[in-house]
């Protein structure tokens, strides 16, 4: 398989979604980026990888970064490129991608902090995840997992924010501890009067070393950690991790397991959309919306508790399948929940739609026009609200979506109202899908054995979570090294969307920031790792 416009052969990875892999040279590294960009493709993820050689027998758990990896999406599927690193003046380097894909910037900065790899030619090389918690010459992902040294924290670093000068310009600094019950991050607004000229984010506060921790866990248990990268997307992450593990081990899960995973994924989508729709009403001073939607969300979570044994369905997706098999009565309960929820959401939709004050706050607020969205790589739900018509469930329908065509929800206005509309549409679509899934659920096993391979292996998982696509790249050592996880990169769509939020707020008033921020509802933990 080839990327359109690039003479380079890729090997298919065994996964339910089309993903290919290839080793590349620095020339190919750059021409691939240009070719993907020219073909209208996107950068999916960027990370420093490990050194496994699936054809060879050994790889030691080497304390050097072995390669730089990029994953791109074009119409045909996803392409994972591994570039062996070059050593230049004592530093591991690779050619910068941010000139082609702006969203690469923060991922490159994170890779520099964690693995000590430098993007040659990059404009912004400020640290991203390391706020001074560990020495600048200590690279957490280059440590042997069995011999992790105790790291003495260094002084907190003073972060060089970009300053805006001019008559009447002043700064508002917010965070990391925010006023509401939300995750920590720092926002630096440059404002004139009420108008925001510029926003600069500083994230990384919830960085808790997930990728290093991954290398300490057995491959068969790491799905639990994957399911805690971003708690609101636990099903999506656990599924993406398990898909990667199953891909590396050539495991095909039973159909019933795939259907149940999708059932939980859609339930997770509905739960989050309900929460957001309520919070969006509340942020526009319509507390009625929060009361109603939070009540519906609570009912929904109780349904998950009753059927899956966990309100957020954590640890219900496991390697080889799922851990819960709903019986007939439980299926009926879930169907009844869909019916009653659908009726209620229709009522609330009518109220939201006809509420002039609410619409006044929503419409044209926090606008990201399709052209800008495309240039900045806006993805997932927010992307679809700005005409970026990508939804993995539709683009590459795997089981069970191959049997249940999904109607993609899109909008072209790119404002808060559009992101609200896409959420409403997706709730209704997910309810339809859930009912179909429960009606047509195939019989059979819900889990199959996963047998780790003799050789080192590579696998990838790719799932359309409620926020956008979650991607997991997994490199496993061979049996001689106890099938350890050499490297597991977990990618959240928030990486792409956070920088776009900086643009969405420009020209809006400060008071609309919470509303705009909520309309994206990005994960801090998911990108901080």
């Amino acid at each position, binding site marked *: 398989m080839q990327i359109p416009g690039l003479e380079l052969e890729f090997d298919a990875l065994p996964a339910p979604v089309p993903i290919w892999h290839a080793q590349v040279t620095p020339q190919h590294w750059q021409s691939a980026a240009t070719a993907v960009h020219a073909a209208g493709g996107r950068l999916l993820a960027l990370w420093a990888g490990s050194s496994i050689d699936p054809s060879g027998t050994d790889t030691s758990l080497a304390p050097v970064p072995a390669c730089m990896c990029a994953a791109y999406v074009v119409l045909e599927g996803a392409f994972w490129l591994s570039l062996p690193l070059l050593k230049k003046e004592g530093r591991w380097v690779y050619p910068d991608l941010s000139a082609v894909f702006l969203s690469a910037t923060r991922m490159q900065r994170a890779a520099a902090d964690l693995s000590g790899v430098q993007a040659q030619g990059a404009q912004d090389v400020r640290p991203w995840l390391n706020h001074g918690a560990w020495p600048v010459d*200590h690279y957490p992902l280059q440590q042997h997992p069995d011999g*992790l040294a105790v790291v003495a924290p260094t002084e*907190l670093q003073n972060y060089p924010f970009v300053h805006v000068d001019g008559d009447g310009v002043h700064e508002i600094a917010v965070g990391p501890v925010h006023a509401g*019950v939300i995750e*920590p991050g720092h926002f630096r607004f440059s404002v004139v009067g009420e108008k925001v000229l510029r926003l600069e984010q500083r994230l990384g506060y919830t960085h808790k070393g997930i990728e290093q*921790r991954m290398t300490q866990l057995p491959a068969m248990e790491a799905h639990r950690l994957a399911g805690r990268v971003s708690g609101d997307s636990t099903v999506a992450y656990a599924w993406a991790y398990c898909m990667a593990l199953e891909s590396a081990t050539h495991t095909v899960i039973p159909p019933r397991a795939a259907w149940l995973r999708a059932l939980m994924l859609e339930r997770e989508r509905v739960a989050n959309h309900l929460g957001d729709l309520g919070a969006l009403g509340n942020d526009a001073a319509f507390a009625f919306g929060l009361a109603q939607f*939070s009540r519906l969300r609570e009912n929904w979570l109780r349904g998950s508790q009753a059927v899956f044994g966990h309100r957020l369905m954590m640890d219900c997706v496991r390697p080889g399948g799922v851990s819960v098999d709903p019986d007939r009565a439980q299926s009926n309960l879930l169907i009844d929940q869909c019916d009653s929820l659908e009726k209620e959401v229709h009522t609330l939709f009518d109220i939201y739609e006809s509420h002039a004050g609410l619409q006044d706050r929503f419409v044209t607020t926090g606008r990201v026009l399709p052209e800008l969205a495309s240039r900045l790589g806006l993805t997932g739900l927010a992307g679809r609200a700005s005409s970026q018509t990508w939804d993995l469930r539709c683009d590459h329908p795997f089981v069970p979506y191959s049997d249940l065509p999904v109607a993609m929800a899109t909008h072209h206005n790119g404002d808060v109202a559009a992101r609200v509309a896409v959420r409403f549409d997706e709730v209704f679509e997910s309810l339809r899908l859930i009912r179909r899934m429960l009606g047509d659920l195939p019989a059979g096993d819900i889990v199959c054995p996963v047998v780790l391979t003799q050789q080192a292996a590579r696998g990838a998982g790719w799932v359309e979570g409620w926020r956008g696509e979650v991607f997991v790249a997994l490199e496993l050592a061979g049996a001689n090294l106890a099938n350890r996880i050499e490297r597991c990169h977990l990618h959240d769509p928030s990486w792409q969307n956070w920088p776009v939020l900086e643009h969405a707020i420009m020209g809006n008033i400060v008071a609309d920031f919470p509303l705009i921020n909520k309309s994206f509802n990005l994960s801090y933990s998911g990108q901080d790792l």
Partner: protein
Amino acid sequence: MIWKAVKQIVRTGICTEAAPDIGDAAQAEVARIQAELLGILGQALSIREVDAGSCNGCELEINALGNPYYNLEGLGIRFVASPRHADLLLVTGPVSRNMETALKRTYDATPEPKLVVAVGDCGCDGGIFGESYASCGRVANVIPVDEVVPGCPPPPLAILRGILKAVRRRIAESANAHK
């Protein structure tokens, strides 16, 4: 428009009391905890929530405390925007090293007498993330903790119970001190 909203409000009724969906046992417990909190405090309790590095799962459940079923505000418990207005810090997550200073400063900014409740397995013992170059582990490694609420994430009722236990213990302690 407003009629539609009013109609919906009337049709929904008051979940906090009626709550047909939760089952009687759980509902009775909510009511008992609510009554006890009011009895102990006799005044509003102000909480500052600090996510010190969580996966956001605990935040989802803490936010759920505000829904009509648990009706936290109805009890006179509210989340406040600043630690300077708070009686109690509700802290989640393994404390990331990047949040260590912010958490300490938040604690210092909270007026005495202050209570700290650590929420979730990570807050209790570091959870699956443990201690590392990036994580300080449990909340008690960074600031004094009065009460822990295990669970991943703990359901809203467990969090409410933890808040109550911390308040009750503090009141018992101060009563003993005055004897």
